[in-house]
C-alpha cells in the first residue's frame, strides 16, 4: 500500500515566521493533494500537484512537487493564527484508492 510520511509531525511557530512541511511517498506519485483540517472539523482541499516540478500557490501557501524524490513540500510565508490546523497530504494509489499522509499539526502563536 502507499505510504505517505509527513514531517515534522508537529510545528509551533511565532506569527509572521515562515515554515515548511514535507510529504514523502514510498511509491511513485501520480498526483499529490494537500488538505487542511481545522481542529475538530472536516478537511478542506488546498491544492493539487500533478507534474514534476509543478508549483502552486494559494494566498500565502505554496506547494511544490518533486517527482524524482517522490516528495512534496508545503511552504507557508508569514504565518498567521488562521493557518493553524492539521495539514495532510494525500495521493492516489495504482489501485485507485486514496491515501492520506500522517499529518502535521501546526500551531501559530500570536
Amino acid at each position, binding site marked *: *500500500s502507499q505510504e*505517505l510520511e*509527513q514531517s515534522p509531525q508537529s510545528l509551533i511557530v511565532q506569527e509572521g515566521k515562515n515554515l515548511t512541511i514535507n510529504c514523502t511517498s514510498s511509491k511513485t506519485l501520480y*498526483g499529490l*493533494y494537500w488538505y487542511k483540517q481545522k481542529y*475538530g*472539523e*472536516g*478537511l*478542506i*482541499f488546498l491544492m*493539487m500537484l500533478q507534474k514534476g516540478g509543478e508549483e502552486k500557490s494559494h494566498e500565502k501557501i505554496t506547494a511544490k512537487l518533486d517527482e524524482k524524490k517522490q516528495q512534496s513540500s508545503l511552504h507557508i510565508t508569514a504565518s498567521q493564527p488562521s493557518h493553524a490546523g492539521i495539514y*495532510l497530504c*494525500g495521493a*492516489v494509489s495504482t489501485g485507485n*484508492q*486514496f*491515501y*492520506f*499522509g*500522517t*499529518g502535521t*499539526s501546526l500551531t501559530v502563536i500570536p
Partner: protein
Amino acid sequence: NAGVTQTPKFRILKIGQSMTLQCAQDMNHNYMYWYRQDPGMGLKLIYYSVGAGITDKGEVPNGYNVSRSTTEDFPLRLELAAPSQTSVYFCASRGLGGASYEQYFGPGTRLTVT
C-alpha cells in the same frame, strides 16, 4: 447546497452494540468515501463507492459494512462495536470533473466505544 452532511455528530456505544453512521451529499457526486481518523493520526480509508450499487474495501474495512442504494446516501454500519473503533469518522465525496481527487468532507462523527 448543504454539501456533505453526517449524522450523528457524537455517539457513545457500548461494546457489542450496533449503529449506522449516516452520510448524504447533494452535489450529485459519483464517488463517496468513509475514513476514520484516530487521535494524532492521518485518515485511513474504510470503504469507498464509485456509484450507486458499487462499493469496495479500503485500507481498514474489518468491522464495518456499507451500502450505496442511491447516489446521495452512503451509510456506514458497525455491527459489533469494539473499543478499537473509537475514532472520528469522516465521509467525503467527489465528482468526476475538476481536480480529480478534490474531495468534499463532512464535519465528522465522533464515536466512543466503551
